[in-house]
């Protein structure tokens, strides 16, 4: 199946590292991450199962580790949002078989609704553009309004049909 992508480029966004103050006045630092899975283990072990999406992140420690190791093997591009020493948000781009990248983002519950998702996803898209990523897609549960609103705001557009999961796509570099 051929996925459609918007003609317009999303953003373009600045690549990390950068920092910003969230709506609660917390200083949040956004950085690329390729130094092992330990900070992500810490974050996902603290993750509220209520905020899982389509089976990820897994709930037990061993499955979380396996999942993160799969991402490393797949050569995923990772960006982490830090509050001081604590990883509190993670966004990733994972290559598919088609030269495009699948995107996902997770933010710990006590840091949601503070503008961190926007700051983090923009950092990920900026990092992707810096690495020459052209096309990005994602799937999101149709009823997850905060998530679909965020994706739309940063430049994703719906691509499909009437399934449970909404698929959206964005272009990071102009079509060749």
């Amino acid at each position, binding site marked *: 199946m051929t996925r459609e992508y918007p003609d317009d480029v999303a953003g373009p966004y600045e690549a990390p590292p950068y920092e910003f103050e969230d709506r609660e006045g917390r200083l949040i630092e956004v950085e690329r991450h390729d130094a092992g899975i330990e900070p992500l283990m810490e974050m996902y072990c603290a993750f509220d199962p209520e905020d899982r999406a389509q*089976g990820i992140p897994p709930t037990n420690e061993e499955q979380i580790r396996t999942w993160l190791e799969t991402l490393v093997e*797949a050569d995923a591009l990772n960006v982490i949002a830090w509050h001081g020493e604590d990883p509190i948000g993670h966004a990733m781009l*994972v290559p598919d078989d088609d030269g495009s990248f699948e*995107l996902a983002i997770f933010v710990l519950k006590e840091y949601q609704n503070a503008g961190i998702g926007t700051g983090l996803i923009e950092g990920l898209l900026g990092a992707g553009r810096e690495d020459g990523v052209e096309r990005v897609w994602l*799937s999101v549960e149709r009823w997850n309004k905060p998530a679909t609103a965020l994706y739309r705001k940063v430049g994703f557009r719906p691509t499909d049909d009437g*399934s449970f*999961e909404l698929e959206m796509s964005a272009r990071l570099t102009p079509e060749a």
Partner: protein
Amino acid sequence: MKTLLGIGGSEDSLRALEEAVTRAKEAGDDLTIAIVENPDASLSQSEVETRAGEVLSETGVEADIRTLTGHPGSQLLELAERGSYDRIVLGGGETSPLGKVQLGSIAEFVLLNARTTVTLIR
């Protein structure tokens, strides 16, 4: 239990085939395998039928194999109602590169429209 397994040749449906046949052997289910049209699958209906026959003969389970043409979800439901099946069994979705579960369009249609209990195999 009178069980109707619907498979179209996607990877998750082939996994469901193995599981459902194994469970039919253990539980003595009265199993029917319906092979539906799935335009997204890499295997043709006759290839899926061959695969189903192999799994049955490997496990020594007897099951009726039916090939359905037309809209897969509605054809499956019609057969389920006409044949008074207790349960419909389907593949439980593919996994995206990132690990997200994505339900197939046939499973979605069946889940929303079935009057019968539906089991998705993970």
